[in-house]
Each structure stands twice: as C-alpha cells, then as structure tokens.
C-alpha cells in the first residue's frame, strides 16, 4: 500500500512537471533595466519583446506586421492614422486603448531619461481620434514612420501613473505573451505565460532567462542540459557543441568596420605631422590590404560574412552592384607609394576587447595584414566602457566599430555614420571619423523625406556609392553571424534582430 502510494505520488509529480513546460534560456548578457524606454540595447530589447507589444513589429523575416495596431496608413504627407486592436488587456487586467498610446508616446519622446528620443525626433505629436484610433503627425514627410514604431513598447497609463521610475524598471506590466514574475539581477529573470494573450496561448508556461556571461559557463550549461538554448556560442567552442546539440547560425544585422580620421591635418595617433588618412589612396590601400577572407576563416572560424557595404542584404537599401574588393597587397603598396608613403607609416588602432565577437583578435589580424604593406599598426584594445567615450570624443585616428541596423533600413547607418556631423539636425551622431561630403549629405537628407519608396531606394544607393566607392569613408570588414545552440526539445528559428522572442518558439 505504501509502495503504491509512493509510486502514485512520483507519477503525479512526473506528469505534473512535464505539463508545466519551462523553457530555460542561457543568455550572454542580461537586460540592463526592464523599463522599455531607458536604453536601446539588444539584450534589453530581446527580454522586453516577450513582455511588451509594439504597435507595429518585425516578423521573423523582418517584414513589418501588425502588433497592437491592426492597420496604419498615411492620410497625407505628414499624418499617419493607426487603428488599434480591440479587446486587448494588460497583464494587470487594465484594457488597452488610445490613451495608453498617447501616454506611451509622450513618455517615449519627452521623458528625460528616455534613450529613444532620437527614434521619434521626426514625429511631432499623436492625437486620439476615438478610443481605438490615433493619428500621428510628423515634422515633414517621413517614410520611416512604421519602422520607428517598432521601438515603442506600449505601457499602461493607469499602472504607470503612480509608480516611481525605479519601480517601473523592475516591475514591468505590458500586453505581451509573457507576464513578468521575478528578476534576480545577475542571475535569473522569470516570466509566466499570458493565457489571455491576443495572438494565442504561448507554448511555454514559464520562461527563465539565465544570465551566463562567461563563455565557458554558457557552453557548459547547454552541454549539461541545464538550459535549453544559449545564444552567442563562442566560435572556438562550436565543435564541442555541434556533436550533441543543434547548432544554428543566422547572419545578423551588425556590420564590423574600420573608421579613419578624415579631416584633421594632424591626427593624434599617427606618427608624423601629416594625416595619411586624408588621402583617398591611403584609405583605398587599406581596403585592398586587409585579408578579410582569412580573418573570417581563421579568427571567426568561418562564422561571419565578408562585408562589401554598409548593410547586409536583408536591409532595405542594399545595393547588389557594390562588391567587396579582393585582397590585393601589391595594389595596396602601389596606392601607398603613389600617395607618398612607399615605406608606410605608423598608427594606433583603437579597438574594444569585450564588445564584438573576437574584437581584439580581429584588430590584431588587421595589424598583421597592414604590416605586409608596411603600415605599422599598434593595437590599443580596451574594455568598451573606456573605448566608446574615447572614440566618441574623436580621441582616435583609426578605430574598429560595429553598427547594428535594427531599423532594417539603410538610413540607419547613412544618417548616423555617413552624413556630416551636425548636432542641430541630429545627423552624423556616430560619424567619429568626421567624413563629410555635401553631395552625400544632400542625398541622405532628400531620401529621408522621400515617401516614394522606389525613388528613396535610388537616393540611398547613390549616397552609399559615393561615400563608399568614391570616397572610401570607412573600411567594411564583415557582418557578424549570430550563433545559437539548442537541444532537441524545442523548435527554434533565430531572428535577424537577435531577439529571443519566445512566442515564436515551441515544444517538440
């Protein structure tokens, strides 16, 4: 009798646990905050995409699809009417309606700590037409409006009205497929299924994000089945993971590139008085001298894609006609000799050592490549906390950067990194090399207000062609590839924006 009871108990426990499906995710970095408006950062957005909805969202193929909006259309050049989904409730039971959109937009655009102000700087205001219709007004013609809406996660006006920012940063309430349960910073973040989710019942009852920042620990966790999936599999460990787990790679949106100091006659980290980077032939020589195929093959273990332009081909604005030049040290030497540097020059290459995949090793391989054409490069690698302030203040002559095009539109890079630095207009914010060409500026500004998508594409392609091919404003290196490992219990398809959106995953 006792034995039977024990068996039954075990059976109940076993059945019970197998029905309460939990998904354990081992992530390389955890969310910085759970307030969706503080910082535009991949790990934070990835986590929050499970808790909050946006009006418009990108589907797995990076096409715009309805979220909390059911439809949107341009009424004229500068107004957009957005119809809202009816019958949606927040996790606390409050209904979702136009007031929440108005509140969210105001907080998104005007809250002093918002990290997304730049995303909506061209959107003037939003007005309520009725409880489920809102009308946005832009400052000028703004073809990017629907894409920018993918950043604005909708918060509950009533819930937020009497909470401190600190409380909102740790107790998020959204309309998304998963409900926040608890967050132990630096360890785990737990979510429960939202059974009343408007797009259907999520396939997991519980999702746990485990912060496993150490590469070896993360790999060990997937190998021992402590987690079901890990992101950012270290390229050196792929063969260990491949044997027993599913391994998948997905070309990402991040371009790794080299930036050079264009305008200064006396650049701080170049030996000699004259700045060699001011000469187009030197910039071109560097492009020819870098053996990117070998960097991809040996440093990235093949898990990167050599880049020939500002964005990968899934991005609107990609140009089929621009190809990467082939590695040609002889031509590079000739170009350097023509420019008056037959014996090269010395320069410091600044690079982060904890930001991009194998960043420091890439910088060293570049130094080795350039040594073959007599350019002596000293690599100065440092943690990102010291690196970005240094590069953003132009305290560098030559540096390595990454740009993730989360808009899925070429304007992202063109506006921020190619257009001349112009604080008033909000252009060239990350153009640390201070490249400037009035013709390129004109094309970019024109494309930003062009509603006709065909003409817009032409303008953006032309801007890229001049900046990259004629002026060699930057040296593209490669597009990063996202690497995931997961076990046989889950169906998983990686997203191009690197988000772990659990609603798209399911049990096998």
């Amino acid at each position, binding site marked *: 009798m006792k034995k039977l009871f024990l068996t039954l108990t075990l059976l109940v426990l076993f059945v019970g646990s197998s029905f309460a499906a939990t998904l354990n995710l081992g992530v390389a970095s955890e969310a910085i905050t759970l307030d969706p408006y503080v910082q535009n950062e991949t790990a934070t957005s990835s986590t929050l995409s499970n808790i909050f909805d946006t009006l418009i969202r990108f589907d797995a193929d990076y096409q715009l699809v309805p979220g909390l909006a059911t439809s949107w259309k341009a009424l004229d050049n500068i107004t957009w009417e957005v119809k809202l989904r009816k019958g949606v409730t927040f996790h606390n039971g409050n209904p979702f309606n136009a007031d929440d959109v108005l509140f969210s937009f105001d907080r998104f655009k005007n809250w002093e700590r918002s990290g997304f102000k730049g995303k909506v700087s061209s959107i003037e205001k939003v007005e309520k037409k009725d409880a489920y219709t809102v009308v946005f007004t832009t400052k000028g013609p703004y073809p990017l409006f629907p894409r920018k809406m993918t950043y604005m996660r909708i918060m509950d006006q009533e819930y937020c009205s009497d909470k401190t920012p600190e409380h909102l940063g740790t107790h998020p309430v959204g309309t998304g497929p998963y409900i926040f349960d608890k967050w132990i910073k630096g360890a785990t973040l737990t979510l429960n299924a939202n059974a009343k989710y408007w797009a259907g019942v999520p396939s997991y009852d519980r999702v746990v994000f485990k912060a496993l920042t150490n590469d070896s620990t993360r790999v060990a966790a997937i190998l021992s089945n402590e987690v079901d999936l890990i992101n950012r599999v270290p390229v050196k*460990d792929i063969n260990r993971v491949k044997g027993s787990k599913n391994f998948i790679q997905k070309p990402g949106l991040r371009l790794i590139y080299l930036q050079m100091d264009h305008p200064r006659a006396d650049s701080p980290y170049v030996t000699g008085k004259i700045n060699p980077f001011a000469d187009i032939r030197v910039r071109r020589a560097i492009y020819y001298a870098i053996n990117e195929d070998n960097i991809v093959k040996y*440093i990235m273990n093949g898990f990167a894609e050599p880049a020939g332009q500002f964005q990968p081909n899934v991005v609107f604005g990609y140009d089929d006609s621009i190809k990467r030049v082939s590695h040609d040290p002889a031509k590079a030497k000739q170009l350097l000799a023509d420019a008056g540097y037959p014996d090269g020059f010395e320069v410091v290459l600044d690079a982060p050592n904890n930001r991009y995949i194998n960043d420091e*090793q890439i910088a060293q*391989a570049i130094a080795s490549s350039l040594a*073959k054409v007599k350019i002596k490069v000293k*690599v100065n*690698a440092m943690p990102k906390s010291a690196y970005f302030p240094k590069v953003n203040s132009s305290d560098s002559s030559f540096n390595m950067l990454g740009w993730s095009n989360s808009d899925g539109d070429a304007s992202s890079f063109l506006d921020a990194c190619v257009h001349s630095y112009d604080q008033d207009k909000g252009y060239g914010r990350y153009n640390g090399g201070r490249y400037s060409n009035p013709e390129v500026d004109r094309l970019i500004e024109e494309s930003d207000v062009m509603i006709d998508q065909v003409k817009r594409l032409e303008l953006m392609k032309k801007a890229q062609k001049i900046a990259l091919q004629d002026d060699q404003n930057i040296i593209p290196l490669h597009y990063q590839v996202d690497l995931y490992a997961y076990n046989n219990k889950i169906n998983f398809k990686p997203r191009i924006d690197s988000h772990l959106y659990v609603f798209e995953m399911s049990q096998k």
Partner: protein
Amino acid sequence: MKFFENEIVSEFFEDKLAVAGVFIFIFFMFCALFPAVLSPQNPYDLEQLFLENSFKAPFGEFLLGSDEQGRDILSAIMYGLRISLYVGIASTILSVLIGLIAGLISGYFGGIVDTIIMRIADIQLSFPAILVALIIMALWGQGVTKIVIAITIVNWVYYARTARGVVLSEKEKDYAQSAKALGMNSVSIMFKEILPNIMAPIIVIATVRIANAIILEATLSFLGLGVPITEPSLGSLISNGYQVLFSGYWWGSVFPGIVLMLLVISINLIGDRLRDVMNPRLKR
C-alpha cells in the same frame, strides 16, 4: 679555481638540486638575453605572422604550436621570458634598494621615524600583495615600467622589515658602538659598517622574492592588468592561451605555464640553498 675557494660558493655547489637550479636558470637567462638569435620567429614582427598558420598543433612545423594569429609559441615564450625576468629582477633590485634604505634608517634612528616607516609597512602588509598591485595597475594602466614600479611598491616592505630587525641587533654590537665613539657620522656607520653585515639575509630573501615578483607579474598579466598585449610576458601568454584552452588548443597555455613553473622552481632551489649556506645557525 679561485672561484671555488670561497667557502660559501663551494658549499653552495655541494647540493645537486641547487646546481640543477643554477643550470636551468642560466639556460633561461640565456634564452631571455638572446631571443633574436635563438627563436625561429620574431613574434613582435607582424610582417612574419600569417593567419594561415593559425592554431597549428605542436611538434610539427611549429615545435610548440602556434596561436590564433599564427605566432610561434616557442618564440613567444623566449621573448616572454625576457619580459618576465626583466620585471622580476628589476623590481627586486629596486625594492631591495628602497627597502634597505628604509630599514636602515628605521632601525638605526628608531623613535618617530621608525614608527612611521614601520606602520606604513604594517598597513601595507595587512592587504594581500595582489590586491595592492591590482589597485596600482588599475589606476595607472598597463606598461612594463608601471608594473615594475607596482611590484616594487608591494615588495619593498619585506626588505625594510628584515633590514630593520638586523640593524636593531647590529647597531648595539661593539664594532658599531666603537665607530660611533670614534666620531663617525651616522650615514657612514649605517652604510660602511652596518650594511655589509646585514646583506646575507637580504640576499637570501631577494632571491626567493624574485620568483615571487615573477609570479605576481604573471598573475597581473593573466588578469589583463599587467604588461600590454604587444609585449607579452609568460603570464599574458598563459592568459591568451587560456581563452581557447577548452576548445582543444591546449598548447598556448600549457607550454608557457611549464616554463614559468620551471623558472620559479629553479630560482627557489637557488634561494633555498643560499639560505642554508649563508645562515650560520644551520651550520654543523
């Protein structure tokens, strides 16, 4: 063989292990002094590195394998030895100088000077050496000279304390007292009379602490706070190799580790023997 007529030297060489230590140490010194002649490749010369040679296994084209950038590990070890030994020896000489002077002054004059110097030493010794060095390196940033100074700051206290202890007993001895009675000034008594008599324990400690300084430097470099990546010491070589140790490329960490271990053992063997032969109390 006049060299061996010296009693201490001849006694030193009676011990087989100590002799082995001396030979290993001399071998490493030789490698460190002439790496350009002995090494197959100059690991600093980027023109000689090719990515095609990335992660070649040992005992083939590269005797001890190659790293990610196609750098020969054997050559990197020879150049790394040079940095490690330089840091170890330079910082020891500097800390002996500072420690001796501080200890002499402290022990000879006593009083308030003694109190101040020794309390500074006490405070510093209450922190782990690695912590003090970490703080200094975090504030200053990387660099070979900086790490020498950081290790000096950590190590001078050991010599200061020892010197002070010996001075306290030596200054009461007849020769010191008679020098004082003859009207010699304090500086002369300290450096001409007392100093030669306290050198034996200092030399013994210094030998052992060279090994300690080398390990401290390797630890700092392993933690990424030591010498810059362009001038790799044994510690930074181990650290670089460690990043890929679990991916099957074991040679990058293991070989520099073995060399570091042998180097420290050889110095310790020499130091232990020196302590035995220089300490009269241990003599039969």
